[in-house]
């Protein structure tokens, strides 16, 4: 890799960069959220079949994207934590998990609210929905593993093993709409032939995607910072007790 990522494993350097990014990420996420919601909820045209309910998409689809990308990010950083023993990698996976779980939950809830008027049922047991539900359980299991170990470095390794096994679910979610006949519509944004959505709807959707991403970055920085500082505090206390 051209950029040496190892130098960002130093918690102090990580904190310095994160602190520099943080104010910008707040501004960007607020700006993009306002713009994306305005464009999505007021400017974008209603669908010719679904009417106004299509607007749920602007909240639902980016949440589902985030649910999967946050898990992939956790898998990558857990692998880095297992291989190179970078403390920041473990902490960043830990910090990302509850955020990812919230995005997954949001995607499931908005999806079922959208499903009721469109499919006539809040929930159907098809492949896409079931695999997303499994993803939520994986997030919860991951968080439970962190809670169950007293030794933080052991918890990090155990959680990393779990996250890497569960990563098999990510391609299953992505391709579930192609492999099985489902009610859920197949991929229409990231396809080989380019997006199949008209620009008037695609633009707010992508803006919302970026808004969710920067929102994730903002909350993520807050959480990682708290984790790193919390770990330092614990070290200081232990040292104090030893003296």
């Amino acid at each position, binding site marked *: 890799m051209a950029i040496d990522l190892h130098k960002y494993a130093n918690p102090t350097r990580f904190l310095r960069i994160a602190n520099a990014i943080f104010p910008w990420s707040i501004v960007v996420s607020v700006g993009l959220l306002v713009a994306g919601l305005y464009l999505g909820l007021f400017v974008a045209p209603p669908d010719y079949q679904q009417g106004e309910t299509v607007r749920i998409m602007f909240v639902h689809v980016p949440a589902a994207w985030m649910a999967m990308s946050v898990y992939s990010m956790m898998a990558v950083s857990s692998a880095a934590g*297992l291989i190179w023993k970078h403390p920041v990698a473990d902490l960043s996976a830990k910090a990302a998990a509850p955020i990812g779980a919230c995005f997954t939950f949001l995607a499931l809830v908005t999806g079922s609210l959208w499903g009721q008027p469109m499919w006539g049922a809040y929930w159907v047991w098809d492949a896409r929905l*079931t695999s997303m539900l*499994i993803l939520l*359980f*994986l997030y*919860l*299991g991951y968080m*439970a*593993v962190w809670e*169950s*170990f007293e030794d933080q470095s*052991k918890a990090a*390794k*155990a959680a990393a*093993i*779990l996250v*890497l*096994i*569960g990563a*098999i679910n990510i391609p*299953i979610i992505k391709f579930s709409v192609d492999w099985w006949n489902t009610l859920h519509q197949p991929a229409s944004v990231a396809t080989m032939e380019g997006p199949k959505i008209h620009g008037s709807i695609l633009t707010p959707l992508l803006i919302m995607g970026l808004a969710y991403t920067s929102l994730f970055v903002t909350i993520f920085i807050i959480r990682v910072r708290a984790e790193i500082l919390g770990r330092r505090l614990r070290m200081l206390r232990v040292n104090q007790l030893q003296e």
Partner: protein
Amino acid sequence: MNSFLALLMRDMRLAYRQGSALTMTLSFFVIAVTLFPLGVGPELDVLARIGPGVLWVGALLACLLTLDRIFQADYEDGTLEQLLMGPLPIEFIVLAKIMAHWITSVLPLIIVSPILAISLNLHSDGIWAMVISLLIGTPVLSLIGAVGGALTVAMRRGGVLLSLLVLPLYIPVLIFGVASVEAAVALLPMGPHLMLLGGLSLGALVVCPFAAAAALRLAVE
């Protein structure tokens, strides 16, 4: 290879001598399956419809009950540390224990499942499909379960966490297992479902011993 077989035989002998464990798992499976006709009512059509699912879920839960035994006892009395210091790679220790678990705890369930299937009024084509799909699919349960068992072995109350970790990963096996039986009952080809089940088994066979071995190293360090 010799030490692998020795470990496998030891675990099976232990399970056999502690006979209660085997009968308890079996009784749990039978009772859990019996609850369904009482719960949903004795209409034979309904039972035939839900039969495959009930048997698969019953086998899955009965398997879950025995997962903590794969490593727990050996961890507590220190045998596990001795085994890890021996010549056999940890991955093979894990594999031997998984095989012993499957033979002692899961195979008996498969053997009694046709009888339960008859009591649930499953079609005769479905009974064969049931046994075949269980034979192909249940190794995944032991393999994934061993990872969960290894992760939770050092915890005092690992049981609940174990089910939270393992059950979501069991869902694909359940789906394809039940689908293959239902295909057989509907006189559709069940090959594709069985192949998917076999794929899951082979994939888990590759991945799970390594993951469980990593988790065990973590537990004893």
